[in-house]
């Protein structure tokens, strides 16, 4: 997020696009509800009538995979009406002319034809967002999980820069991170192309710095493989061994049959987890890890706040914190590490990671004094926090963007990779539900959660259900090119005809058995989990 959670309700207009906030980030959604009570205007762009759509002043029910068209239509109207922020564009951005030319290729009416949102609603959304003094955008995987995910993100950035709605209180672009430490896992270099702090693995200066800090010569000086590429490389025999810490790709990754085939082919697979997950079942060695209640450390949340995780219980049985296990293996391979605590590791992180340079465990205990929106005692530092006396950064890009000037991108609409056909006439879009979480490893152990939602459900419209002879609560078969699963039907007006929705939490009816791994975004390598063509049949 460019801004803080507490900043959200400072906005007069909140534009939520591709985020089912009340279910996937329920407590953050309370800031949106607070803003509404304070008189803010809410625009929600989502194919489904999610809870926030019901609360919204304007709901834009776009067809899945048409975000670029919707956003372009909005921007075209902004420029046609002269609502762009000329000062911001002149002072803070570049490549505006090329961007403006790219808008010529799509009228609001054409955008409307593509995305299915009435042209007047596109115009109204553009007006509300562009003419507000302060407007915040929230987005999540509804923007990114497309084969055009990067274009979608760039389009969101274009809209914010065009209208100057970034870099101040109540003005920001706020991607919502889905997992407790997904932000931190990225920050720490859990990615193929960067060391911690987004220092490029193919940058000679960064390589020299890390070699000096780690006392090694790095063998690999090129970008590595993303998870999707790894899976393909196992098929070709290039990858022989995998080490998986705290992940469950059998349920979280697209095209489950392919993932299972792949894991079965890995010559030596090590899985480290707190449960024998669907992925661990394929392992040659399973290493028992401590849960987050059993260890010390830090998580970094969606607003870049580094917060202390504290040990409340002893690890179960022989299990150990993941860092201790990694250190044991490293030392058997001759590394000679001697970390005594998580705090030891954070000292090294701070030394080699510019954004975390001022982070120490003792500073994380302090209540942050001067943070602009803290009505409560909040601990933890928001990166960038480069030095010991730096207070952290609640709002990014307030003076300039990371690269200096914000770069407008000329983006053309590309249709989803998978289109409906006579055989697969419905679009399946996937996401999360309120009660369960990710691959269900933790939530499906909870009696209080299972009592609320015991089984996998597919949301289907009343019209499609009636046409297909499907009753509410009855088992159905959902089939794509890649496989088939049997959830129960949830007949609802949350989805419109032609659209069905499923969460991916359920091992017994895994939505990712249906989704595809073939169509990746060319830059981010993210799969198109939001658009899969399927058919649904009643099971008698």
């Amino acid at each position, binding site marked *: 997020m460019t801004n803080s959670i507490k900043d959200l309700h400072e906005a007069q207009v909140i534009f939520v696009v591709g985020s089912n906030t009340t279910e996937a980030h329920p407590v953050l959604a309370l800031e949106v509800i607070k803003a509404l009570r304070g008189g803010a205007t809410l625009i929600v762009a989502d194919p489904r009538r999610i809870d926030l759509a019901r609360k919204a002043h304007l709901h834009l029910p776009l067809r899945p995979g048409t975000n670029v068209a919707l956003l372009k239509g909005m921007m075209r109207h902004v420029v046609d009406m002269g609502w762009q922020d000329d000062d911001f564009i002149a002072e803070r951005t570049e490549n505006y002319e090329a961007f403006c030319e790219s808008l010529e290729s799509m009228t609001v009416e054409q955008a409307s034809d593509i995305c299915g949102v009435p042209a007047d609603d596109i115009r109204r959304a553009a007006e509300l967002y562009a003419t507000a003094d302060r407007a915040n955008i929230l987005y999540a995987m509804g923007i990114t999980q497309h084969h055009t995910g990067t274009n979608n993100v760039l389009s969101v950035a274009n809209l914010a820069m065009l209208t100057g709605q970034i870099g101040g209180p109540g003005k920001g672009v706020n991607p919502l991170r889905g997992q407790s430490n*997904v932000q931190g896992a990225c920050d720490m270099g859990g*990615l193929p192309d960067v060391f911690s702090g987004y220092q490029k693995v193919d940058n000679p200066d960064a390589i020299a710095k890390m070699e000096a800090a780690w006392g090694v010569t790095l063998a690999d000086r090129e970008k590595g493989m993303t998870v999707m590429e790894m899976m393909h490389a196992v098929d070709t025999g290039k990858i022989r061994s995998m080490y998986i810490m705290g992940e469950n790709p059998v349920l979280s990754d697209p095209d489950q049959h392919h993932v299972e085939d792949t894991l079965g082919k890995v010559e030596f697979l090590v899985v480290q987890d707190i449960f024998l997950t669907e992925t661990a079942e394929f392992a040659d060695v399973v290493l028992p890890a401590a849960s987050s209640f059993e260890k010390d450390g830090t998580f970094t949340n969606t607003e870049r706040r580094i917060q202390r995780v504290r040990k409340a219980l002893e690890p179960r049985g022989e299990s150990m914190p993941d860092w201790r296990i990694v250190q044991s293996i490293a030392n058997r391979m001759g590394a000679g590490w001697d970390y005594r605590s998580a705090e030891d590791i954070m000292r090294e992180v701070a030394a080699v990671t510019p954004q975390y340079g001022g982070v120490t465990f003792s500073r994380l205990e302090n209540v942050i004094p001067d943070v602009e929106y803290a009505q409560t005692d909040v601990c933890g530092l928001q990166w960038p926090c480069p030095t010991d006396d730096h207070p952290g950064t609640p709002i990014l890009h307030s003076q300039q963007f990371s690269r200096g000037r914000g770069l407008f991108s000329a983006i053309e609409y590309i249709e989803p990779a998978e289109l409906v056909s006579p055989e697969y006439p419905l679009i399946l879009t996937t996401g999360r539900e309120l009660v369960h979480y990710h691959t269900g490893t933790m939530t499906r152990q909870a009696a209080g959660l299972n009592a609320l939602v015991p089984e996998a459900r597919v949301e289907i419209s009343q019209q499609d259900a009636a046409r297909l002879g499907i009753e509410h609560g009855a088992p159905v078969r959902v089939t794509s090119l890649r496989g088939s699963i049997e959830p129960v039907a949830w007949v609802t007006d949350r989805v419109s005809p032609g659209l069905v929705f499923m969460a991916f939490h359920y091992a017994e009816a895994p939505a990712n058995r249906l989704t595809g791994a073939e169509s990746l975004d060319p830059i981010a390598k993210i799969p198109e989990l939001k658009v899969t063509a399927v058919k649904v049949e009643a099971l008698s």
Partner: protein
Amino acid sequence: MAVVNEAVEKTLTVTVNGREVKAAPGQTVLEVARSIGVEIPTLCHDDRLEPYGACRLCLVEVEGARGPVPACATKVGDGMTVQTNTDKIRRLRKFVIELLLSNHPLDCPVCEAAGDCRLQDYAYEYEVNMSPWGWHPLQFESRDDHPNIARNPNRCILCGRCVRICRDVMGIGCWGFTNRGYDTIIDTPYNLPLEEVGCVSCGQCISTCPVGALSMKRSRYAARHWQTDKTTTICPYCGVGCEVVVHTHRDALVRTTATVGRGVNNGNLCVKGRFGFDFQNSPDRLTAPLVRDENGDLVPTTWDVALDRVEQNFKRIKAESGGSAFAVLASAKCTNEENYVLQKFTRAVLGTNNMDHCARL
């Protein structure tokens, strides 16, 4: 602009119990008193909610006012003089508590809230006579069919906090006042099950209930409030980073709560943060390393055997094919420190940049 700033920055001087305090316009008497450590009892107040002024327990004397005023709903004015703990005020508060207790069940020995109950605390603090008006405990029958939220309307003091937090903070409105007078009860519309009136099972109503009318059903009878150790940490679910207080007893997780006035969540939690932690005590947790035996089954073993197997195979494959034959997945569920050492291991020890995690999934 300058004029506006001047108004905002203007400070007021208030005298609380003889002590001069600087205050900001818009602050309430309750807030100003708390800022200098003067506690005023409240039952219907929650900092997450707007002032309500219903319970009359926070009454204070303000010089020049016609009678006692509620501290939670009275804004301070310049030069205001407040007394929070006079004999008269103490008598009034005692009277309010006695009235509340006159129909309260007094089943404290088996009440979930005991030890963490405002009514219990204040009855003690104000040395109330238990039944000067006789004792006529409520005898309501109530629906109690929610899997996580236990309801006991007989313990309810009708402060309305559950009604307001559900309506104002959650934007839902499952609860309301039903019936009138002595028969008033907090209930769902038409006494429908909570699940049928839009309840998202966040348990926010439990978190604000000052007594034991609403409690966490699944941790009932597990441990008393004073028996548990409490550790403040961060919720392991989504990326919002809510601060949770983990209550543990005899090496087990009993329940989680959150503290109003702290963290990005300010005491709020969702259904998972409040009711989603059975996994911690689950018998299915991995407690020993597993290795695949000659029959292809995963069997428990020692760390030495498991790590030997990892070492031998990693070394063999690295010698045969180099670092590029490895792929490593980090975890969005593990700490920063763990992800850092794993990427260091991958790049510096295995010798590959084939490292990723499910950030895209």
